[in-house]
């Protein structure tokens, strides 16, 4: 049975063990978030809809934690490099940091990415909508997938538009004569946007995979997992971009 938004309260109380004074063994569900299912009495893989979802979300969140550190380090390197000047022999403070005015197209790109996050979330929610997903699970057509697909395609188109916009931003920078090695600030511009673009390219791959998975995967739960994992990754990339954009645009 697939996971849905509506949670049912499941009885976690055990029966009395029948030995009079002895307290029941354990009334708690497993701490790991069996959540709405009775984790205690089932083996893994038979724990109901959320177990697999949790496993994949755990992996995605771990990757995102690693990614977070990756970008956090990059941002801290930015600030260190920005303040790294020295006192020259002439007793003047010398710094080779030239403030950079970000290409205005980045504003449009940011808006596009935010919009894509919204469409992604709508697509994700379709897959967890109880009535639709239960119909799919029972084999009565594919209402959830049919409703999610346009939003997912919209996300892919918007994501591709964002990447194209980034490409144009690099092009504009290059036309103004700012290349990767031009000055410390441009290293960061290209490094930040470049690594983020690589991440987003991977995300785009995940979205396409999720789109195919929605139509090809036989198990409804796996369709949910494909879309859900891609969605969380996409949201995180959107969030990271917001921070990186603020860094590029306002912290020169």
């Amino acid at each position, binding site marked *: 049975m697939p996971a849905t938004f509506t949670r049912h309260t499941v009885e976690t109380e055990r029966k009395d063990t029948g030995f009079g004074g002895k307290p029941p063994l354990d009334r708690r569900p497993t701490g790991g978030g069996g959540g709405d299912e009775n984790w205690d009495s089932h083996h893994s893989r038979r724990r109901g809809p959320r177990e697999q979802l949790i496993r994949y979300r*755990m992996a995605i969140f771990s990757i995102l934690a690693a990614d977070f550190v990756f970008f956090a380090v990059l941002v801290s390197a930015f600030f260190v490099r920005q303040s790294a000047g020295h006192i020259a022999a002439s007793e003047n403070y010398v710094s080779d940091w030239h403030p950079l005015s970000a290409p205005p197209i980045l504003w449009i790109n940011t808006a596009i990415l935010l919009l894509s996050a919204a469409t992604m979330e709508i697509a994700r929610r379709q897959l967890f909508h109880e009535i639709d997903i239960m119909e799919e699970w029972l084999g009565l057509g594919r209402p959830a997938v049919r409703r999610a697909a346009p939003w997912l395609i919209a996300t892919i188109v918007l994501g591709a538009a964002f990447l194209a916009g980034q490409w144009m931003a690099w092009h504009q920078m290059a036309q103004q004569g700012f290349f990767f090695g031009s000055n*410390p600030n441009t*290293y960061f511009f290209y490094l930040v946007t470049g690594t983020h673009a690589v991440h987003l390219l991977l995300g785009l791959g995940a979205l396409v995979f999720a789109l195919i998975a929605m139509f090809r995967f036989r198990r409804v739960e796996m369709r949910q997992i494909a879309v859900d994992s891609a969605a969380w990754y996409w949201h995180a990339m959107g969030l990271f971009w917001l921070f990186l954009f603020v860094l590029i645009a306002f912290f020169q």
Partner: protein
Amino acid sequence: MKRLFTTDHRALALNYLILGLIAVITGTLLSLLMRIHRTWPDLAMPFHGALRPEDYLALVTMHGTLMVFFVLTVVPQSAFPNLVLPAQIGTERMAFPRLNSAAFWITAASLLTLLAAFMAPEGAPISGWTNYPPLSAIAATGPGQGAGMDLWLLSIALFCLAAILSSLNLLATIVARRCPGLTFTRLPLTVWSWLTSSALTIIAFSALLIAAALLLSDRHCGTSFFLPTGIVVNGVPQPNGSGSPMLWLHLFWFFGHPEVYIAILPGMGIASSLLANFTRRPVPAYRLMVLATLLIGFLGLGVWGHHMFVSGMNPYAGTAFGLTTIAISVPSSAEVLTWLVMLFRGRLRLTTPMLFALGFLSFFIAGGLTGPILAQPALDAYLHNTFFVVAHFHLVMAMAGVFSVFAGLYYWYPLITGRCMDETLGKIHFWISLIAAYGTFFPMHLAGLAGEPRHYAQLQGPVESFANLIPVERGITWSAFLLAAAQLIFLWNIFRSARRATPEAAPNPWQATTLEWSGVSHPTVSHGPYDYGTVSTGDFLPQWQPEKPF
């Protein structure tokens, strides 16, 4: 071939162990070459001739890298969890078997890349396993800093990737695949350690990954993240950078210090489990131990600056890092005291794994006691980069880590081969190793206090400052030989016991309570992991057996 490309976690564990064995043998041989060179500097090596100073530095770099990454990280953090973690939480497989297998292959590629640095045109890199810029950022600064350094960085980047993948698999496995009834408060302490060190791995190794990428960019793309102004190499002024070498130090040690805990936390978990088993006493403060493990992991993220007291960091920052470092000795001491309480009035069974667990405890205390000394900026100003530091981390990380690995290997060997290892050989191996390890690393404290610096290729020369330390050095070298020779006994024991020289082990040879010994495919758990000597009937209550009604 089929064995190599398996997704079965136990087969992968064996692959990891073999990889670790290759690395530890190479690393040990390198360290012996270093010892020989320090004691007899003019001795010509076969196939090579006399060692030049830069060759010595290459040995230092490769020894450190091999041991820290491919032995002390790979074996406790990859091999052991693959061997027992799924069984200890009562599941038949990992959360992501193919990801797990991919992590092994990336690790193997990383090791090959690192070893290829020996074959690089000018040899292996010479800037130590920490590779501080500008030495590591400019190819002209020395032999091995060209292609060798690139290979090192590539190898480490691959290793970071593998470590992150393998850790997220472990995290997902622990969180989502525990068997019925195995709540978090019923997990064995080994599992808690792997949970903590996996979280640390994900944070620390991603920082190293980006640092390696930035350094590669400095070397090849004309950037200057780490390159300062006014560098002159061999009379050639380098392009001005205004970058900051300190940035590399911060990034590297932000990885480097959690890495120490990644290496030692699994060992601490193994020690807790083994001490409980072989003293037949429950872990007296289970929740405290869990808390201490998590706290060590958490505090471990905020102490990296104590590696940089004399590198030009703001002295106030030094004080702060000194404080956090002293703070981390609180949970560490809590664990040590708990172990001592377990020994006190415990019914000790001095089997080989127990002896090695006690050896771990001994080294952890001996090496740990010098930690708070080095954590004080004022004292560290004198001791920094002396052999005192070498003694400290070889005892508390290297020897404690390796002894916990031995303890684990002797303890879990029946799970691999169905036979216990030979006890007599094991005890000989233990006693020689213990004495030789102290003989090797303890005198280094004295040499360090006398001011002997690290990374010097030799002490003899026109200046006689360290002439009186040469007898100590010679003693250390002989002791190191003995330590290495004792490991031959261990290798012999492994192969001899595997080839049916010892009788077949009972299903639960150590009378342990944790699930890896159950042999039950779908266990259900109803109580904690260390029920030794507390039940009225029988000496222990395994986790796969239900609690008996009174």
